[in-house]
């Protein structure tokens, strides 16, 4: 038993084992340092996995040495290796960032539990991404969701609405997860297997009512989890009232992982042989993606709470991802995967900038941002740069996403989609511009609760700027994300059976 052979299971095992240990540590700094160390370790393992997959192809790890169709398989190809690296990378940055922010926003008696729940959430997200077993996806999805409910509720110290937000998310999330299980049950009934690759083989040529119902349940269930446009109602409150570090973490990872699961089920489990996939793309994902990116952007424009604004913006950005994958072409899928990565970078950085403002002013209302360019210049520029990335200005990752998406839209013949993408980017410019105007041009208040704001501490600024730098770096050097995503998309498309 050498370590390299067991590498595939480590991204799940490390945080899972570390989480209960966190509870044994004395209160104060120790739980944070421990959790950060673990998240970095997980990130290192994920990077090692990416390079292994990149060089040697798909890794298949058999849990407990049970052969795949019977036993649970962890299956890492290019697509989920990238998502693994993304989730653990964001985790590594946010865990390092969290300490001061959590100290301020979370009840000190809960801080140990906070890091424990964060590690469990990381475990769940990594598990969803890594596993090749359909039921396993449900279990890990619920591991991450349950810890997220608890984490959101911890925002109750600053605002009691965090509790109702967490409760509503729990109701919606559980309905979503249960729909997903029903879908898995129907697929199991039709095929007698739960392994994704095996499901794909057995579903080939099967197109009866049971499989169709299973497909519908799975799409709606995951749609709830990823906040697909009309199913997004839980998201704005959850992101707004969660502690800022939690907002940054789940906004950058949880919905992305759910989008990945959707891609996995569309392409790797059902494939284009199954006629419903094409229908779902044309009649569900495409219109809902377009509606989401447009309507949610418009709603974001009228929010006076910056966190809520960013939350609606997230719903809109998920619209882009759904749009990309609904083109059912390699270009579209590449755009979708690239945007999953890039959106995590920009939304993570934006939420961290807001966390810095909340740390100093105690509020995420847009009024708190007045004149911050003078008081908190480093934070302001982090916000503006990642905001530009969200809009899609050249030299940032946002531009790369939009470029891939527009190319894919034209290639697929959806010129009107291309038009709407640009239009919705303009709305993004308006709502980011509103905050930027507030920060840059207004005079800082000389009295009132926001008057004493000064620059956030280094322990928050450095992780935040790491993400901002990543926004620029991957915006200039596109070969890493772009090429990897293209390879992942090609592999997925090959399994799915080419264009429909």
């Amino acid at each position, binding site marked *: 038993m050498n370590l390299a052979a067991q590498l595939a299971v480590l991204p799940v095992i490390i945080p899972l084992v570390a989480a209960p240990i966190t509870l044994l540590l004395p209160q104060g700094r120790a739980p944070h340092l421990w959790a950060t160390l673990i998240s970095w370790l997980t990130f290192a393992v994920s990077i090692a996995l990416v390079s292994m997959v990149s060089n040697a192809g798909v890794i298949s790890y058999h849990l407990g040495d049970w052969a795949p169709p019977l036993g649970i398989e962890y299956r890492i190809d290019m697509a989920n290796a990238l998502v693994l690296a993304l989730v653990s990378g964001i985790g590594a940055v946010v865990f390092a960032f969290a300490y001061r922010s959590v100290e301020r926003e979370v009840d000190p008696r809960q801080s140990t539990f906070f890091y424990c729940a964060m590690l469990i959430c990381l475990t769940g997200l990594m598990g969803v991404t890594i596993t090749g077993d359909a039921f396993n996806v449900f279990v890990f999805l619920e591991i991450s969701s349950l810890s997220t409910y608890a984490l959101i509720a911890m925002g109750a110290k600053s605002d009691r609405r965090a509790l109702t937000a967490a*409760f509503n998310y729990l109701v919606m999330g559980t309905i979503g997860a249960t729909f997903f299980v029903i879908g898995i049950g129907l697929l199991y009934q*039709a095929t*007698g297997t739960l392994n994704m690759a095996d499901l794909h083989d057995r579903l080939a040529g099967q197109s009866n009512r049971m499989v169709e119902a299973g497909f519908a349940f799975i799409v709606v269930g995951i749609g709830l989890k990823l906040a697909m446009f009309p199913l997004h109602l839980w998201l704005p409150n959850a992101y707004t009232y969660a502690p800022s570090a939690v907002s940054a973490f789940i906004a950058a990872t949880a919905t992305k992982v759910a989008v990945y699961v959707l891609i996995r089920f569309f392409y790797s489990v059902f494939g284009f042989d199954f006629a419903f996939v094409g229908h779902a793309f044309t009649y569900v994902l495409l219109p809902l993606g377009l509606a989401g990116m447009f309507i949610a952007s418009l709603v974001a424009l009228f929010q006076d709470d910056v966190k809520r604004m960013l939350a609606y913006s997230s719903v809109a950005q998920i619209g882009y991802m759904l749009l990309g994958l609904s083109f059912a072409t390699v270009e579209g899928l590449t755009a979708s995967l690239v945007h999953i990565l890039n959106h995590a970078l920009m939304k993570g950085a934006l939420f961290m900038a807001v966390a810095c403002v909340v740390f100093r002013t105690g509020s995420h209302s847009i009024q708190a941002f007045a004149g911050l360019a003078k008081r908190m210049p480093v934070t302001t520029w982090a916000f503006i740069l990642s905001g530009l990335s969200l809009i899609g200005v050249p030299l940032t990752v946002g531009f790369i996403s939009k470029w891939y998406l527009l190319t894919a839209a034209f290639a697929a013949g959806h010129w009107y989609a291309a038009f709407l993408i640009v239009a919705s980017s303009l709305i993004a410019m308006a709502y980011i511009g509103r905050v930027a105007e507030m920060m840059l041009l207004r005079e800082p208040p000389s009295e009132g609760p926001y008057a004493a704001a000064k620059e956030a501490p280094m322990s928050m600024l450095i992780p935040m700027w790491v993400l901002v730098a990543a926004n620029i770096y991957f915006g200039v050097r596109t070969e890493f994300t772009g090429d990897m995503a293209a390879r992942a998309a090609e592999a997925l498309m090959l399994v799915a059976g080419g264009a429909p």
Partner: protein
Amino acid sequence: MDGWIDFALGRYNYWIAIILMMTGLYIVYERGNLVKKVVGLNLFQTSVFIFYITIGKIAGGTAPIYIGGELEHGESGGEGEAAGEGALHEAPADSANTLGDAVSPDVNDKIDNTTQSLHGKIINDFPANDLKAGLESIKPPADASASLHTAPDIDAGKIANDALAAIEKPPALALDLSDTSLHGDAAANAMGEAAHQVSEVIYSNPLPHVLILTAIVVGVATTAVGLALAVRIREAYGTIEEDELEALDHIAEFGEAVTVSAGAAS
């Protein structure tokens, strides 16, 4: 008309699951009380448990707990066809061997035929009487095998069933089995005897049971978190009625606005 009634009654487990599911969802949607919402959610999840258990049920099959006999095939068969062609062919061959001299060569052929037809069968086809048979669980296997349960998971248990049905023809063996049924008051006893004779115990598919054990844990955790949140909400707001919570939030956000507009309306 008769066909419809059989169709509906034969699937009563599914109807129960659907009714529970809809009741649960309706409670979640309709009730303003947070605790009632959690209970509704729990009901909704429970319906899925019943659905999964129904998938795994095999008429005449016992709970998937080891009760002796040579069970290698019974266990590995849980994955149905997934276990591969090999297992499918092995299982009937094995039961045929242990039956020994009682089985004439042409029965062996029949078994092979059964296996063949199994492969060709549309696996979603439920005979209407499978669940009825499932109800009368205390039945000797000879009887149970008369109603073939074609659950979509073709597994070794069912193959053994099929094999039994094919074997039933030789009179000597049929007598043997009915003897067993005479003093087979306890199901376990009958099963045990059958295990010795056929060396195959018919188990329900264990996999859905295991999956649902996991899902139950998830459900319990969800309910616990939901109720804990309700407790916290009660501490923070003093109420767990949704409309009152909304009114309180509205007042907190817009101050007097809500009372003013209410005054204007009246």
